[in-house]
């Protein structure tokens, strides 16, 4: 009986969840993590224009965070044009704002590059070393992909 009730609850809440997870170890404020992840989902096309986001209460229950944090995150996403509140219905992804997606995709990659450069500096690699290594890794990766494709073709025969 106990377990039945739980499963039922989960099934009900699952219909409007969104793929966001909170990490408390890296010092980023929770509302900022939500903002970044929603932007990421929009930039990568996993959330499409016109799609509805979960209501504040639902997302707060899902993430186990204070509802005011969701209010703050949605508010910021609304100001930056990612989300749109429609009166009396809910919160939706804004209609196509391609330049925003471009900016956000760039931001995600730049963040990774900054971390890479900091790490490289610690290990005494220059930016030029890194550029060369990126090309080498890419070439090796492409080769692997080509080989795998070749193997698949052979198997298919």
């Amino acid at each position, binding site marked *: 009986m106990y377990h039945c009730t739980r499963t039922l609850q989960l099934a009900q809440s699952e219909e409007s969840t969104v793929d966001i997870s909170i990490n408390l*170890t*890296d010092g*980023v404020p929770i509302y900022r993590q939500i903002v970044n992840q929603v932007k990421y989902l929009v930039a990568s096309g996993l959330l499409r224009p016109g799609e509805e986001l979960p209501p504040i*209460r639902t997302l*707060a*229950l899902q*993430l186990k965070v*204070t*509802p005011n944090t969701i209010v703050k995150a949605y508010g910021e996403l609304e100001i930056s044009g990612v989300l749109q509140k429609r009166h009396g219905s809910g919160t939706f992804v804004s209609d196509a704002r391609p330049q925003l997606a471009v900016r956000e995709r760039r931001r995600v990659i730049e963040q990774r590059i900054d971390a890479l450069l900091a790490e490289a500096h*610690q290990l005494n690699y220059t930016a030029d070393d890194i550029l060369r290594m990126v090309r080498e890794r890419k070439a090796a990766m492409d080769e692997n992909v080509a080989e795998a494709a070749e193997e698949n073709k052979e198997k298919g025969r």
Partner: protein
Amino acid sequence: MEQSIVDVSNLSRTFGDKAALDDVSFRATAGQVYGLVGSNGAGKTTLLKHLLGLLRAASGSVRVFGLDPVRDPVGVLGRVGYLSEERELPEWMRIDELMRYTQAYHQTWDAAYARELLETFALDPAKKVKDLSKGMRAQAGLIVAVAHRPALLILDEPSSGLDAVVRRDILDAIVRAVADDGRTVIFSSHLLDEVERMSDHVTLMHQGRVTLSGALDEVRRQYQRSRVHFAENFVQPPVLETALLIEGGGRAWSVVHSGAPEKFRQSVLARGGEVVESRDATLEEIFMARAGRSRQQMEAA
């Protein structure tokens, strides 16, 4: 201005010759969640008991909904829900009796909500309080605390000793109180990840004093954690300006610091080191820095 729900100013209290509360001020406004953290004996429970009128303010003042909870217990307690750390409930009552008994005290009792929670928690109404497990006792205590939809919900160490499932029930109740009704919640907890998730404001108590209080995001912004590398080996932690907590050894140290980041960086440079990485500190790191090992440094500051 936001509606003030709780106003405590300059509250002091001694038990014997021990200062339980020392010049504590605390304010809570409507619709917000307040997390109270601090080691055992820091004064959290004593502060909460003053809000409920269970203790009389020896010096300073306590106002809840603008009322003195000792002089006007009816006006205050009718609008407050309380889950005590010991979960004191009448042992001899059955759960359904406990519900009827509590309902009799509250005009605003929401029977449908109480029933829904009973079902969600799968509590047997015929069971006696004294036969409940620790988790069930907390769930029963929670229903009694929230079913009259109080304007102020006070939870003292609600998660203490509970498994993950019941802890989730408690957090859900907090979320619902705020999201559905715009209520105010004050809870104390030693689980810092829970406080970080659930609080809009955080208050850190240490030895009867409030050592830190504010909006969580603002408090967090005032503290950084940096990784620092030095050219030379340090046997003792290096002395660095604005540093509150230093851990590590040899050439690599991890530092929690507060104040101007530039001042910290210069101080590291002056000792032949380099800041490798910096980020905002987590609540856990702030807590350790302000209430943990580096106490002498803090008091010296």
